[in-house]
């Protein structure tokens, strides 16, 4: 038998992205291949650079909030909270107890939507389309819940400096519990579908392995770090809001491979739901309780009255806020106040009904007035869905932030991607990239 001709050893360059569907539209990987094996990769990012940090320097402190929604658009509530907490630290403010609980509830719901999307999408990329449909169904239910609270599905701008925009709707707790129950059902189904599925496991197990030392050197946090066995979680290490009031576990993996990351995310969703349930049990009343006895008029009526100058007696009444602007008038609330007039937007009722309220609103919003935190610099980390999400804000005492910097959790994972992919095969790029949970808005800002 003739000897096999020695195969030519020559590497091939393969360009993947930026519009490749598995690259989620905005990442380009230039892979050097030796046959099937990935020898080296160059990861190029920046295709969704939207100048968040530059924008933040142009607008007032309150106007930055909508931009933070669009950083990690899968879990916008966490970004909102992170930014507001950083500015509150700058002011030295502390929100009311109820506002803290509301923030925790919304944060954890957001974390669940983020993990649902991540696991669903990466399962879809491996062919498990049913999982994707199931998980998006669960996400849709949570979106509807979020919409009832905030008035929007995705880009919600819910938190304000010093509190949140509006209180929870009256039957929130029961609805939330019901939806969490449904989510658990979905997660159970998904678990049964894929966790012991031969194809799924083979594609994930021992693929995309990162060692503890590397993960730390790359500054990786969140589920990605926890999959290697380090139980670092900002909620535990430096509890913010009221996270120290709850009983929850931090799931960790051991191998640091794609499969462990999948398991960690699945467990984390369960833990998040536990936190939400405990928060629903413990949430205190407070200045935001619903006033069902009289004294209510719709915000639209109040504006009409005020326009005609009939403002006597309006101040002090509660008006039904209307987050959808359709007149459906969900909820009648007073707002959550920090007591610091220099930092807080006045409630809409005050804005519409009294000249002081209107002036106060003007003073907090208009360019040249705006809220003015004292000079200084702060860094505030919160646990984002992908890891530590930090806001570093430098204030020069004027109404615009001098510098806002986001510490993007998935940026650092993308930096390590090249190292993780090395030695795996070409087909492994897709599940590994999927487990990174790359979110463009946060990666490129």
């Amino acid at each position, binding site marked *: 038998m003739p000897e096999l001709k020695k195969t030519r050893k020559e590497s091939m360059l393969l360009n993947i992205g*930026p*519009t*490749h*569907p598995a690259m*989620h*539209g*905005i990442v380009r990987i230039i892979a050097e291949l030796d046959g099937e094996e990935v020898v080296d990769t160059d990861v190029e990012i*920046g*295709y*969704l*650079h*939207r*100048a968040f940090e*530059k*924008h933040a320097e142009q607008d007032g402190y309150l106007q930055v909030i*909508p*931009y933070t*929604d*669009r950083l990690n*658009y*899968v879990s916008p509530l966490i970004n909102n909270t992170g930014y507001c907490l950083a500015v509150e630290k700058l002011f030295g403010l502390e929100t009311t107890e109820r506002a803290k609980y509301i923030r925790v509830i919304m944060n954890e719901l957001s974390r669940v939507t983020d993990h649902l*999307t991540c696991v669903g*999408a990466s399962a879809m990329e491996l062919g498990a389309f049913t999982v*994707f*449909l199931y998980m*998006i*169904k669960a*996400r*849709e239910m949570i*979106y509807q819940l979020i919409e009832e609270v905030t008035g929007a*599905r*995705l*880009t919600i701008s819910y938190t304000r400096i010093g509190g949140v925009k509006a209180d929870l709707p009256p039957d929130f707790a029961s609805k939330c519990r019901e939806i969490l129950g449904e989510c658990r059902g979905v997660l159970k189904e998904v678990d049964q579908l894929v966790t012991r599925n031969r194809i799924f496991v083979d594609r994930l197990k021992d693929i995309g392995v990162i060692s503890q030392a590397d993960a730390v050197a790359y500054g990786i946090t969140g589920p990605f770090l926890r999959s290697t066995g380090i139980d670092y979680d900002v909620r535990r290490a430096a509890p913010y809001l009221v996270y120290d009031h709850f009983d929850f576990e931090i799931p960790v993996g051991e191998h640091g491979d794609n499969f462990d990351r999948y398991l960690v995310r699945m467990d984390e969703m369960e833990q998040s739901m536990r936190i939400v349930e405990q928060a629903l049990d413990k949430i205190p009343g407070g200045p935001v309780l619903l006033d069902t006895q009289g004294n209510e008029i719709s915000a639209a009526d109040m504006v009409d009255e005020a326009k005609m100058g009939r403002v006597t007696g309006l101040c002090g009444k509660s008006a039904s806020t209307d987050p959808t602007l359709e007149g459906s008038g969900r909820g009648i609330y007073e707002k959550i106040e920090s007591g610091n007039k220099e930092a807080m937007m006045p409630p809409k009722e005050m804005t519409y009904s009294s000249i002081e309220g209107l002036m106060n609103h003007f003073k907090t919003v208009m360019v040249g007035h705006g809220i003015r935190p004292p000079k200084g610099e702060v860094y505030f980390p919160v646990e984002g869905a992908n890891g530590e999400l930090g806001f570093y804000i430098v204030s020069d005492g004027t109404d615009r932030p001098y510098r806002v910097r986001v510490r993007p959790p998935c940026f650092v994972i993308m930096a390590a991607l090249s190292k993780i992919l090395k030695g795996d095969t070409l087909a492994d790029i897709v599940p590994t990239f999927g487990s990174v949970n790359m979110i*463009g*808005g946060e990666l*490129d800002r």
Partner: protein
Amino acid sequence: MEVKTLEQTGGFTSKLDDMVAWARKFSIFQYPFITACCGMEYMSTACSHYDVDRFGAGLPRFSPRQADVLFVVGTISHKLAPVLKHIYDQMADPKWVVAFGVCTCTGGFYNNYATVQGIDTIIPVDVYIPGCPPRPEYVLDGLMKLQEKIQIEKKAY
């Protein structure tokens, strides 16, 4: 002339143009050019709850050469603009473009050094769906508008 009903003739007459347009509008092969936040709503629209398949647009094609409608979903930065143009040029006629979300319509509130101020500065657009991001209902409405447009379009074939 005696007019026969459909039951009597077993068929009906129409213009070839209309027939072709009718067939086209219910077989939209879309290319989702997803970049940003709007992608989340695109996913919601495509999945079972809103079910874009009802409009014959359920099958995304990830090769521009096989697609009829380019869905530009999300902010286009100047770094990405040449790629978008390249994708558009690769699509075969007849082709339509949907600008999904306000960033693609006008640049939205990203008026800065990095963002394209509306993709119509680069490629022609047929339907604009504003919103940041648009709700799935808007998207379905936009899709129906696109179908109307395809129906009345006069094209040489």
